[in-house]
């Protein structure tokens, strides 16, 4: 078999494992055995360890790829964003796309290996970067209350996380929390932070 064909097969198997792990972790959490991931991916159990020597390596790789996707989406969004409302809507849209996995990340952070925890912190910092660049502009224009940026950011994130972490009280099991509450969360948050006569 030509080397290039072998490499393509290897890359395909790796991709299958990553995609299966993403689905399994999203649905069952990070304590799931690797045999379940292998079954979902349709590969031999040993094949997982050819690509990822340990479960932690797989988790680190997955969280890192997830971070790259979120980062790229947020960057594209901030570049063309003309208002805070559009940026926040975009943030919610990105989270909705990855809702199940993101909810696992914030609810099972303590189960993640150190490097994946760090990656999660870097992901939030990337979001904070785009959030702050838009919100500081709004504060300067006098449309948003002059509160510390970290309070504004943490309030926004805290609101979203509260709904995600208590999803069983807010929606049916298969329903997207973000999709259901997007409009309400957005309008309430904007209302809380806007300056009278602004936004």
């Amino acid at each position: 078999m030509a080397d290039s064909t072998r490499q393509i097969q290897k890359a395909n198997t790796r991709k299958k494992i990553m995609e299966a792990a993403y689905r399994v972790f999203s649905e069952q959490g990070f304590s799931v055995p690797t045999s379940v991931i292998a079954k979902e991916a349709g590969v031999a159990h040993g094949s997982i360890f050819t690509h990822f020597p340990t479960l932690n390596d797989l988790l680190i790789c997955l969280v890192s790829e997830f971070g790259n996707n979120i980062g790229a989406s947020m960057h594209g969004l901030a570049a063309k964003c003309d208002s805070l409302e559009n940026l926040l809507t975009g943030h919610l849209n990105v989270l909705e796309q990855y809702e199940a996995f993101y909810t696992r990340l914030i609810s099972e952070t303590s189960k993640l290996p150190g490097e994946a925890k760090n990656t999660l912190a870097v992901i939030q910092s990337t979001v904070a970067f785009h959030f702050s660049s838009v919100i500081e502009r709004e504060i300067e224009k006098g449309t948003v209350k002059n509160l510390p940026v970290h309070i504004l950011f943490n309030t926004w994130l805290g609101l979203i996380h509260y709904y995600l972490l208590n999803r069983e009280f807010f929606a049916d099991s298969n329903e997207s929390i973000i999709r259901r509450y997007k409009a309400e969360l957005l309008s309430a948050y904007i209302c809380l932070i806007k300056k009278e006569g602004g936004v």
Partner: protein
Amino acid sequence: MKKCIACGMPMEDISDFAAGDPTKDYCIHCARPDGEMQSFTEKKENLTQFIVRTQGFDENAAGKIAENMMRKLPAWEKYFD
């Protein structure tokens, strides 16, 4: 598309590049006022303060996140060997 070697930011528009120079490998946020790239110490301090300001973290925790951001970037890899 180029990515800043010092912070990883995608550089699409000419205004993203240091001194508006698209031949540079680092972005406007990683440049000193004279256009040169910030040092490791300057960048780490700036990132740490940025995290404190935008997320309200404790300074030590923010410093660790800043290091983790920098660890994988081409400009700073050698500082973590």
